[in-house]
């Protein structure tokens, strides 16, 4: 139930997946909003602080998820998956997990290099120290660009990932999506007993 089985994701993996997916995609939207609200500096300031708080949360969860993923065996690819498909899926999953850590990290670098020196006070609760980077307008602009391109690029990758999952689920009917929705469905359907 909690841990992955050979055919299904465990509840921990499923919760990590959807929590981080919602946070990460929400952050792309929120990040975009910070760029189009220059006409309302107060709103823009507040959106930036939410973006930073949620970004740190995303990064912490993504690091925990990475530890969990490395400690647990991944379910095997669904039957009738070609070798190429398996490699593509594995590469996509690894890249997305890496991006959920690295994109927030580049945002942290933006805050750390900005001459504005606005403290990172996550959720007005946790004072996050800045990374030991040199502050300059140029460094801030560079990290901002890296942050934005990686974020939007990851958004495209997440879209492809979701499209592939939907294709498997509804065109091939192989249960790919279902096994990321419920920890027991696959095992029960296969007549096995749910892993506890």
């Amino acid at each position, binding site marked *: 139930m909690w841990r992955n089985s050979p055919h299904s994701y465990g509840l921990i993996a499923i919760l990590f997946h959807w929590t981080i997916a919602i946070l990460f995609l929400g952050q792309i939207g929120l990040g975009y909003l910070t760029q189009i609200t220059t006409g*309302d*500096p107060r709103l823009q*300031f507040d959106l930036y602080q939410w973006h930073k708080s949620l970004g740190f949360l995303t990064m912490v969860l993504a690091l925990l998820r990475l530890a969990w993923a490395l400690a647990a065996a991944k379910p095997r690819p669904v039957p009738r998956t070609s070798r190429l498909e398996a490699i593509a899926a594995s590469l996509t999953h690894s890249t997305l997990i890496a991006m959920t850590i690295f994109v927030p990290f580049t945002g942290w670098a933006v805050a750390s290099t900005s*001459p*504005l020196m*606005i403290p990172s006070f996550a959720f*007005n609760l946790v004072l996050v120290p800045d990374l030991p980077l040199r502050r300059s307008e140029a460094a801030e602009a560079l990290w901002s660009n890296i942050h934005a391109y990686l974020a939007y690029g990851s958004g495209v990758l997440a879209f492809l990932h979701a499209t592939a999952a939907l294709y498997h689920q509804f065109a091939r009917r192989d249960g790919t999506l279902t096994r990321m929705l419920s920890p027991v469905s696959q095992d029960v359907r296969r007549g096995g007993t749910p892993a506890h």
Partner: protein
Amino acid sequence: MFKTLLIAAAILIGAGLAHAQSLSELRGRYTIAPSSEIAFFVGQVGGGGIRGRFSRFSGAFELHPDDIARSNVTITLEPASVATGESRVENFLRSKAVFDAAAHPSITFRSTSVRPAGPNSAIIEGTLTARGVTRRETFHASFAGRQGRDIAFRVVGEVFRSPYGMDVGTPIYSNIVHFDMMLQGQPI
């Protein structure tokens, strides 16, 4: 050595007496000279903060050294003239998020009462009008020196910004604005 000390002490005492004697001569109206400084500081979580100053202001004060309570002061500053050394911070402060300098081009303080706080200092109470809000605020003024007929006062005070609709950024940035002013008065 002892003699030198003695002479130095005599000079100091003499200067002190001269100061006391001449205080009544200082009675009169003064304009606040552009050479004055109006600086402020807003602390931030984790230490440090935003330091800035206003470069455009005007005002006048009336000094009654023998009866301090009859003294008064009025000062108006232009929030658009804020300087912090970082243009993005300045633009933010001028914007609707903080001063809304376009709609409210001036911030004014008018004293309503002055009472002595010590031999060379006074508590100044008055009304501060900023961003369309008028509230009572208190500042502490102390004599900082004179040069010819010009006179200088250091004025410090703490003002909460949230009542003036300028609470953006709290609690990352403190709600308290520390003012530190060196007002140079020139007799009118």
